[in-house]
């Protein structure tokens, strides 16, 4: 049974959903890890990216590439709307505004008034055909014991490919003088200002960039599931993305990737184990099939607590940086 659980866990860890979450975490790394911006509404950018694709294709019959562009443009607009009034104020204003904006977006997509466009609570489907039509992989089952279908493999390749592209982009940006300003803002924005840097403008660029990466994550998410529904975009998605980032190590290029792999490996492994044990009647009713989700999350929370106690810099964080007195 151990190997079965292992393969279940591995299949999810390298799957398209994990890649989508890795993208959310890459975006948050830009915001929080490098710039120190508290975006608690990354799921809002994800929603915009997902619905950008779904609405453009399913509602208006446009091509997929246009849908992706619409999602990205939507993310830019959202970042501007969120950033312009808040980025001159204290950090907590952005936090409150982003979490509220993400929830407002979810309510807008699910109200009956927007049903003709967004599909309301039922959401939208049949918009990913164009993506799967491009699949160059011959039909079949791949990666041996993981038995991954050619369609899933295609989304995995594109999803993780995008993770690689944006990881590389941030790596290149952060080693440049542009990245130096971004890091100085995280440390002390008044110091950056006193040296002639337009802090607001750089924060805005960071917010837009991280938001766009989140929206691309949303597009990957929507295409891989081939459906969007408002209630998958709950606030907790943002907190999973934060958990992934912190798990892997903030302000490191590899943190979001490692974090996503570990996070989904543990979640899927736990779920598989609990389900199989419960099916075999080897588990007290308390943990039974109804409670698998809650038990898993409790366990993940415990794991994060232990990590913060014993390895506060995350798996790949810089310990010396962590220990410096920041003021």
């Amino acid at each position: 049974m151990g190997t079965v659980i292992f393969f279940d866990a591995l299949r999810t860890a390298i799957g398209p959903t994990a890649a989508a979450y890795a993208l959310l975490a890459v975006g948050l790394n830009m915001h929080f890890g490098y710039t120190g911006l508290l975006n608690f509404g990354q799921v809002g950018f994800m929603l915009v990216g997902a619905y950008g694709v779904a609405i453009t294709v399913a509602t208006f019959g446009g091509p997929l590439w246009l849908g992706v562009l619409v999602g990205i443009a939507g993310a830019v607009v959202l970042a501007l709307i969120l950033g312009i009034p808040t980025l001159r104020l204290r950090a907590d204003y952005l936090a409150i505004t982003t979490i509220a904006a993400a929830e407002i977006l979810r309510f807008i997509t699910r109200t009956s008034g927007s049903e003709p466009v967004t599909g309301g609570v039922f959401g939208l489907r049949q918009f990913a055909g164009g993506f799967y039509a491009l699949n160059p992989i011959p039909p079949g089952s791949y990666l041996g014991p993981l038995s991954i279908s050619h369609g899933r493999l295609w989304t995995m390749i594109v999803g993780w490919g995008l993770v690689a592209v944006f990881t590389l982009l941030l790596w290149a940006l952060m080693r440049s003088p542009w990245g130096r300003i971004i890091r100085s803002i995280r440390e002390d924005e008044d110091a950056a200002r006193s040296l002639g840097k337009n802090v607001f403008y750089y924060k805005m660029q960071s917010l837009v960039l991280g938001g766009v990466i989140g929206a691309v994550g949303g597009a990957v998410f929507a295409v891989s599931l081939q459906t969007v529904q408002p209630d998958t975009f709950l606030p907790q998605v943002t907190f999973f993305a934060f958990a992934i980032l912190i798990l892997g190590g903030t302000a490191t290029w590899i943190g979001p990737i490692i974090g996503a792999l570990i996070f989904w490996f543990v979640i899927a492994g736990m779920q598989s184990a609990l389900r199989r044990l419960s099916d075999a009647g080897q588990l007290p009713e308390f943990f039974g099939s109804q409670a698998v989700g809650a038990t898993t999350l409790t366990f993940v929370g415990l794991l994060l607590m232990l990590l913060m106690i014993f390895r506060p810099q995350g798996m790949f964080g810089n310990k010396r940086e962590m220990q410096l007195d920041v003021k």
Partner: protein
Amino acid sequence: MSSDAPAATDPLEGIAPEPGVAKPDPILTIDGVKRSFGGITAVNVDHLEIQRGIITGLIGPNGAGKTTLFNLMTGFDTPDTGTWRFNGAPLSGVPAHLVARRGMVRTFQLTKALSRMTVMENMQLGATGQLGERFLPSLIPGLWRRQEREITARADELLARFKLDHMRDEYAGTLSGGQRKLLEMARALMVEPELVMLDEPMAGVNPALTQSLLGHIKGLRDDESRTVVFVEHDMDVVFDISDWVVCMAEGAIIAEGPPSSIGQNAAVIEAYLGATHGQAPARRRKQAGGTDQ
């Protein structure tokens, strides 16, 4: 120390030691600047001119409004009323980063060393007009590598001058309080400012470092012909290196003049002795022992 005076002809020779007096070549001119916090008037300056090319010491008991005046002048705070001009151009309402780019750079009373960046990165950040600081060019190192090398060379020179070269690649967070003050000053110089505003550059610096810090401040005037305004409590230091001293109390300029005239000024003595939360200037001498040779 009068042998260190900048030039044979003192530009402020014969200027009356009166609050708000006009000067021959002001770099900064302040008019009617007021700032209150709730009921407290933190700054209330009718008129003040800062002469170009000299070191002006700004003194006054704690809470006199010195830091607030710095904040207002450099765009970190907004006054209720008032205007000020830098090099003849009005600066009211100009955001802090543009004030710095125009040539007025300040340091902070509580140092703002960027702890999780190296000493060299702190320095490099100070350089203005970097092509690599723009989003798209930053992605192509070939475009900015040369400029980065030039900036690094300039930073290395300054670090050597400020005796921080051995800490070059350490995180700034590992520096001592005094070294952070030095770094902050060196970093401000990377901006190539015309006017440097130093808010208590000597506070918390151990006596061994104070002398070299004083030397650096004089060097700004003598070797680089920059203008310096600095806040300091130690009267020995103020009298040693200032060409002109301005004294604030309860937000207003109560006296100004050459150092020799300030020590005996009745208003200054009154401000220090009368202020309940201030300290008499003479009493600071013991704490800062070793500064006078």
